[in-house]
């Protein structure tokens, strides 16, 4: 009996080794800014006087304010960049990064959780399609041909966007992915766990089996120490460390199709700050991380598309606590080859908040977030039919990707 199961085990190992050769040629990296990022202070409409009027304390100074490094950086005749986003300016100037203004959802609750859930599930308000949008994308494009490292989220928990994705893994670094059993020859333990989880029928069966598969794969990766390319300098933040692990997986060709990385803490109700302070620190973390990631993956530009979104923007005006409350429209960022970069795409709706019937006010939403995701999926990720990911949704053509 033991012999037979050992044979089966080895056979499974062999199958996995075959699967290792299935490198991805299109990897989607999704960065979620949790808490509702105030993108108005990241891509600043400096030519709109109202902006400075309704944000007397927290606005980012005009590019010509004469405040040196404390001024925003001019992008065009209307928009400027938060100075802490300077590290990504070259990516923008090279035309590899686009910003879409006035993106959002139809969710009127003003709730972080409701809106994040809705977006991660890829739904319209109160219309559940079942599971996460990335999970549906993975299934639509790959069917059952997914491996334990096809979808990875950096952090302790799987995001809702990967709910229902077969074989999605939550990790922090690949170095600590191994079984540390007391006795030598951990294969015996792996065999026992394979048998125990293999006979499970419930919720735990596939996570158990996928974890065991992941272990085998990571074993091969571990052998080599990781050195970022092109002098990419990842700063000391969890966010950058996460991106570094993603870059490592991408360059190891383990078949990574989707990676999710979160950056938390954008819920700036109270003393948000301007060029310095609470939000500026987050913006710096974001900018430095994305710049290092981009440099590290210079050889993989054709392969990698990075998307940066949040659940909602904030009110256009500052509140009595020198912060901003929950709002509506936000600016999404897309980095990759073949996009119409170097510009803020999308009509600027102005800062007038009076038009909402339900829910908190904020910048008007001109582009449903699913239109952005659909365009990325169909034009960058070569998904023919986005209906399988966003059922019943007719995307509006925004023009993020070059036709």
């Amino acid at each position: 009996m033991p012999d037979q199961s050992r044979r089966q085990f080895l056979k499974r190992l062999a199958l996995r080794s075959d699967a290792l050769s299935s490198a991805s040629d299109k990897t989607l990296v999704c960065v979620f800014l949790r808490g509702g990022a105030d993108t108005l202070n990241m891509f600043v409409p400096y030519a709109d006087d109202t902006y400075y009027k309704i944000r007397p304390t927290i606005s980012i100074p005009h590019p010509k304010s004469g405040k040196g490094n404390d001024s925003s950086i001019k992008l065009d005749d209307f928009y400027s960049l938060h100075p802490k986003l300077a590290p990504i300016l070259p990516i923008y100037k090279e035309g590899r990064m686009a910003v879409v203004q006035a993106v959002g959802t139809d969710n009127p609750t003003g709730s972080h959780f409701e809106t994040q859930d809705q977006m991660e599930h890829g739904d319209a308000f109160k219309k559940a399609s079942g599971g996460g949008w990335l999970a549906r994308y993975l299934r639509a494009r790959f069917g059952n041909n997914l491996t334990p490292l096809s979808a990875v989220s950096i952090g302790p928990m799987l995001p809702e966007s990967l709910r229902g994705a077969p074989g999605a893994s939550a990790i922090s670094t690949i170095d600590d992915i191994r079984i540390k059993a007391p006795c030598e020859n951990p294969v015996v333990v792996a065999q026992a766990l394979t048998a125990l989880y293999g006979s499970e029928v419930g919720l735990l069966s596939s996570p158990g089996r996928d974890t065991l598969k992941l272990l085998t794969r990571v074993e091969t990766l571990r052998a080599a120490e990781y050195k970022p390319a092109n002098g990419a300098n990842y700063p000391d933040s969890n966010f950058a460390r996460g991106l570094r692990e993603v870059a490592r997986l991408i360059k190891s060709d383990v078949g990574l199709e989707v990676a999710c990385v979160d950056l938390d803490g954008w819920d700036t109700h109270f003393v948000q700050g301007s060029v310095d302070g609470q939000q500026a620190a987050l913006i710096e973390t974001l900018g430095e991380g994305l710049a290092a990631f981009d440099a590290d993956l210079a050889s993989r530009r054709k392969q990698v598309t990075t998307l940066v979104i949040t659940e909602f923007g904030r009110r256009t005006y500052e509140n009595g606590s020198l912060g901003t409350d929950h709002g509506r429209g936000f600016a999404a960022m897309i980095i990759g080859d073949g996009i119409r970069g170097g510009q803020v795409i999308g009509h600027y709706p102005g800062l007038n908040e009076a038009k909402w019937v339900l829910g908190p006010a904020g910048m008007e939403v001109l582009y449903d977030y699913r239109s952005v995701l659909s365009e990325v999926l169909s034009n960058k990720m070569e998904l023919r039919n986005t209906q399988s990911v966003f059922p019943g949704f007719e995307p509006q053509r925004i023009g993020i990707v070059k036709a």
Partner: protein
Amino acid sequence: MTSELSRREFLAISGLLGCALPLAGCSNLNGFVASRLGGGIPESVAVTNGRDIDPAFHLISRAGFGPWPGDVERIKKKGEKAWIEEQLEPEKIDDGLCDFRAKRFESVFLDPGTCYEFKREALRKDLCRYHLMRSVYSKRQLLESMVEFLSDHFNIYIEKGDCIYLKATDDRSVIRKNALGRFRDLVLASATSPAMLVYLDGKENKKEGPHGIPNENYARELLELHTLGVDGGYTQKDVYEAARCLTGWRLDSGSKRGTAYFDPNLHDDGEKNVLGKKIPAGGGAKDVEALVEIACNHPSTAKYIAKKLVAHFVSEEPPQSLVNRVAKRFSENGGQIKPMLREILYSKEFKESAGSKMKRPFQYVVSCLRATGADTMAGDEVLEYLTRMGHGPFQYPTPDGYPMEANPWLGTLLWRWNFAFALCSNTIEKANVSLDTLCSAIGLEDLENIKKTPEVLFAYMAGRRPNQEESKAFKDYVSRRDFKDEKVRDELIGLILSSPAFQKV
């Protein structure tokens, strides 16, 4: 101090300490004291061996954090009903041994002002270790389970602002004080709790005027997360009106640093209208009471709290008929928690749900420590495992609290396995197990016995005998290992704790 040892216990412990100190080879005083006072592993532990999970095993696994060696027999002897009723009166349960260990974490008993004299790191460690330690050792298991539930429901993230200095007070005077009391008292205590005033910006909330408008953050979460639930039927206008009621609460920064007070000058004292109910002008500091009363009396609150409690104790897909019955208890008894818990714990739905839930990492770690009868002061290394699994106490940033459902935790299996193996091989600092003692209590004196009957160990840990596939997996495992030394036994127990059966509850 929350609860003092009885005089008799104190004398007993002092006596023990006197003789314990000179003892060589007794590395841990707490463990020594515990074993002498009956808190260790009993000499003999019966193993339930039915095909289905034993009802007493199920009861303490769901109403608490799983059995300590000997607990299942104790419940059987007392009767399940008597055990539930006893758990519902926690103040009558002697918890001296747990309190004895708890004294080590001095800052959790202090007022906020004194806490400001400590370093953040020291406060964080005291609070998290105290929380974990109580879950492992308290005999008031149902209370601890409710504390876990409520710490999520009224989530406070201790890394935000000054929350770290204030959470211990919140834990004592909001959560633990009212955990089996009235729900309305919980909400009211939480509304003006200094930790909550910081966490959800209540201390910044002031009346609309030339210099600002109310901060709606807490008001929104009060309705969305603490009382009615997101579909509870409130409007954005209700959020705004609730925020008006809550204007004016501030924190002292002087001699009573970190205590809440009401500043009438910052309060909007006009008439409010929340959820269709009028709150007359001039209510001042009483507005919050009126608001909490209105929110808690709203029918959505009874349903929402009932649903969450059933999700906690029974199933993440709460059976509607049970939710309705529990909601009815809430409404009939003015939001008293005990009648709701009785309705749940005595229900058919509860009994029939054995083994159908997945443990969250905190419950997993605590149940491992309890099942092995570990001697732990809940050290940093144990907490690190929890952090790694994304479930460190009071470390959840957003006010919805850690997810209750299984799905977000499915990625944590590897870390659970590694915790189990590390625990069983005694490599976790400040968490010692004596698997010798445990195995002889179960009746598995020598390694040869263990090799022959791994299913007995499994049955002890899982509350039922292994099914055919499980049996085969363990038989195959022992056939591949040479039981020459105890390392293999440690690994086998780690493997049992790693199995799907022990992830479930």
